[in-house]
C-alpha cells in the first residue's frame, strides 16, 4: 500500500523478544490515515504483541513504532494519542457505565468542567446507542452492551487511532455481525484509523480496508481483502484465509507465471504461481471451493463421488471423494448447477482455467492452525 501522507501508524524493523522467545520480528508496516486495518493470524502469531506495542504496553526490543510520524519509544500509554478496546473489555467494575465512559475525560488537563464531562460522556454513549444507560452498573449490562460501553470509553477522548483487541470474540454470532457493521460505520463517520486484531478471517475480510496477515511473528502479506483472498502470498495465507482445497503435487514444467503440476493421481494441471516455483519442486495447488464446477458428465478434470451435501440456502456445499486426491470441498450455486447431487452419486469436477494457484511447500497434516474455538457467550 502506497502512502502519500504521514502514516497514522508505522512499524520500522520492529522485533519483540521475551528472553529467548521471539514474539515478533522484522515487522515493517505503514498504516495510512483513516484506514481500517486488521491484523489477522492464528493465536500466538504476534498480532496482539504488535497492538500492545502501539498502545505502549510493550516496548519493542528492536526497531521503532511511530504514531503519526512520532517515534513512541519511551512514551507511556497515558501519553499516546491512541485508545484501546480490550479483550473482554476491561471495564471498571466499581464505576457505572457513564463513569466508565467519562474516565478518560477526567484525566484531561486542564480539567473539563463537570458539565462538559457529562455532556461528552452522554454523546459518546449515544454514539454507541446506549443513551440513557449511564447510571447502569457494569454487571447489569449484557455482553453486547458492555462492548459498546468499552467502545464509547475508548472513543470519548477522540484518539488518533483506535485499537481493538479481539473485540467481538465474546459475542454471539448475530450480535457479532451487527457490531461488525456498526464498527465499520463508526470508523467511516469518525474518520480515524481502526486497528483490529482478530483470528477470525471472515471478520478481518469483511470489515477492513487492509488486512495484514501474520504467522509465527512475521507479516506474511498485506493487502486488500480481495487481494488476500484471491492472490494469497503463500501456502499459509491460502490455507488460513477462507476455505480451500490443497492438492499436493510436483512441478513438471514452468513457463512464466504458469506451472504444470503433476498431482498424486497422475493428472497434470496448469496453475498460476506468484512467487516462481522451480521445476521439480514439491508444491501445493490451492483450489477454492467456489472455483470448482460440478457436472454429471464425464468431462471434468477429476471424477469423484459425493460424500456429503450441506444445503446452505442459495448455495450447497459438497464434500466429494476423489480417488488418490482425498476429499475436495465444492460450493455450488443453485442458479448455475441445475441439479443437486445426492450423496453416493458420481460427479465430475472441473474448474475455470486460472483458478488453481501453486505454492511451494506442502501442508503437513494437522498443521492447519485456524482457530475455531470462538467463545460464544449469549448475552
Amino acid at each position, binding site marked *: 500500500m502506497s502512502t502519500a501522507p504521514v502514516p497514522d501508524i508505522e512499524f520500522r524493523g520492529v522485533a519483540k523478544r521475551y528472553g529467548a522467545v521471539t514474539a515478533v520480528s522484522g515487522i515493517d508496516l505503514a498504516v495510512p490515515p483513516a484506514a481500517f486495518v486488521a491484523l489477522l493470524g492464528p493465536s500466538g502469531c504476534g498480532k496482539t504483541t504488535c497492538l500492545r506495542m502501539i498502545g505502549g*504496553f510493550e516496548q519493542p526490543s528492536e526497531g521503532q513504532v511511530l504514531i503519526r510520524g512520532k517515534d513512541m519509544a519511551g512514551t507511556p*500509554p*497515558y501519553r499516546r494519542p491512541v485508545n484501546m478496546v480490550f479483550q473482554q473489555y476491561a471495564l471498571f467494575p*466499581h*464505576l*457505572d457505565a457513564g463513569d466508565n465512559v*467519562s*474516565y478518560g475525560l477526567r*484525566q484531561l488537563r486542564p480539567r473539563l468542567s463537570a458539565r462538559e464531562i457529562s455532556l461528552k460522556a452522554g454523546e459518546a454513549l449515544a454514539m454507541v446507542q446506549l443513551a440513557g444507560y449511564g447510571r447502569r452498573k457494569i454487571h447489569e449490562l449484557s455482553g453486547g452492551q458492555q462492548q459498546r460501553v468499552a467502545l464509547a470509553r475508548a472513543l470519548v477522548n477522540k484518539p488518533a487511532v483506535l485499537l481493538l483487541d479481539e473485540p467481538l470474540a465474546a459475542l454471539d454470532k448475530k450480535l457479532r455481525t451487527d457490531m461488525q457493521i456498526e464498527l465499520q460505520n463508526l470508523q467511516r463517520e469518525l474518520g480515524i484509523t481502526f486497528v483490529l486484531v482478530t483470528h477470525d478471517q471472515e471478520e478481518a475480510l469483511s470489515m477492513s480496508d487492509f488486512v495484514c496477515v501474520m504467522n509465527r511473528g512475521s507479516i506474511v502479506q498485506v493487502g486488500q481483502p480481495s487481494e488476500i483472498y484471491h492472490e494469497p502470498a503463500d501456502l499459509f495465507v491460502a490455507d488460513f484465509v477462507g476455505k480451500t482445497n490443497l492438492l499436493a503435487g510436483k512441478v513438471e514444467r514452468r513457463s512464466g507465471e504458469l506451472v504444470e503440476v503433476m498431482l498424486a493421481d497422475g493428472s497434470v494441471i496448469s496453475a498460476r504461481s506468484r512467487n516462481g516455483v522451480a521445476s521439480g519442486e514439491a508444491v501445493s495447488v490451492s483450489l477454492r471451493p467456489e472455483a470448482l464446477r460440478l457436472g454429471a458428465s464425464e468431462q471434468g478434470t477429476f471424477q469423484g463421488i459425493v460424500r456429503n451435501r450441506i444445503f446452505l440456502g442459495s448455495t450447497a456445499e459438497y464434500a466429494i471423494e476423489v480417488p488418490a486426491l482425498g476429499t475436495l470441498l465444492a460450493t455450488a450455486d443453485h442458479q448455475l448447477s441445475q441439479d443437486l447431487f445426492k450423496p453416493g452419486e458420481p460427479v465430475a469436477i472441473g474448474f475455470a482455467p486460472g483458478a488453481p494457484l501453486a505454492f511451494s511447500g506442502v501442508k503437513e497434516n494437522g498443521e492447519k492452525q485456524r482457530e475455531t474455538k470462538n467463545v460464544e457467550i449469549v448475552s
Partner: protein
Amino acid sequence: MHGSAFRHKLLTVLLLAPATVWLVVFLVLPFVAIVVFSVGERAPEGGYQAAFTMAQYANLPARATAFWNTLILAPVGAFACLLVAYPVAYYLALRAPERWRLILLALIVIPFWTSLLMRTYAWMYILGGRGIPALLSYIGIEDLRLINTPGAVLLGIVYGYLPLMILPIYVSLERLDRRLLEASADLGAKPLSTFVGVTLRLSLPGVMTGLSLVMILLLGEYLIPSLLGGGKVFFIGNALVDLFLQSRNWPFGSAIAVTLVFVSVVVLIIANRVSTRFSGARQVDLI
C-alpha cells in the same frame, strides 16, 4: 409433609447443630452471665452478688484512662499497621516475581508459628535499657526511654498484627484484574491516578477487612500493653484482668466487658458501612 422435604430439613438442622450448640454454650450463655453480672453488686469478699443496679455502668469513668488508651491506640495502631502493610501487600501482589511470591508470603506468616508472647518479650529486651537505648548511649544519646511508652505499645501492635493486615489486602490486590490498570493508563491516567482511582479503590474491601480485624483484636488486647506498656500504658484488656483476678470486682469488670463488646459491634458496623459504600451498590461521586 413430603419425606424428602423432611429429610432435607433434618439434614439442615443436623449440619447447623454443632455450631449452634458451640455458640450457645461458649458465647451466648457466658455473655448472658456477663450481662447479668454487670447489673449486680460486688460481694463483700469479692465476686458477684445478685442485685439490679446501674451503679457499675455509672462507675465506668473510673476506668476512663483504659478506655481512652484503647480507643486511641487501637485505631491508631490499626492505621499504622495499614500504612506498613499496604506497600508490602502491593509489592507481593503486583510487583514480586511469580516464583518468589509464595516464599515471601511464607516469610510473613512464619512468625505466627512462634507465640506472640515470646516475640513481644523479645521486643521488651530490644527496647529496654540494655537494648537500643544502650546502643544509642555509645553515640552520645543518653536517657532515651523507649519501653513503657505509648510508642513502644504502638510498635508492638504494628509488629504483632502486621500479617493480619497484609493478607486480606494481598488477596484483594491479587484478584485485581491487571487489564484494568492498563485500561486506566490507556485512558490517560498517570500512575498515581491509576493507583488511587483503580488499585486502591478496588482493594478497599481488603483494607476494610484488615482494619476491622486488627481493630477488633486490639480492643481486647492485653499482652502487648502489659509487656511493652509496663502498667503505664494499659488497655481495657488489662483493666479486665485487674478487676477479675486482682480486685475480684466481677460486676464492674462485667460492665466494662459489656461496654467493650458494644464498642466492637459499633466499629464493625461502621467498617461494614464504609466498605459497602465504596465497593457496593451505589456510587456516591456522581459527575
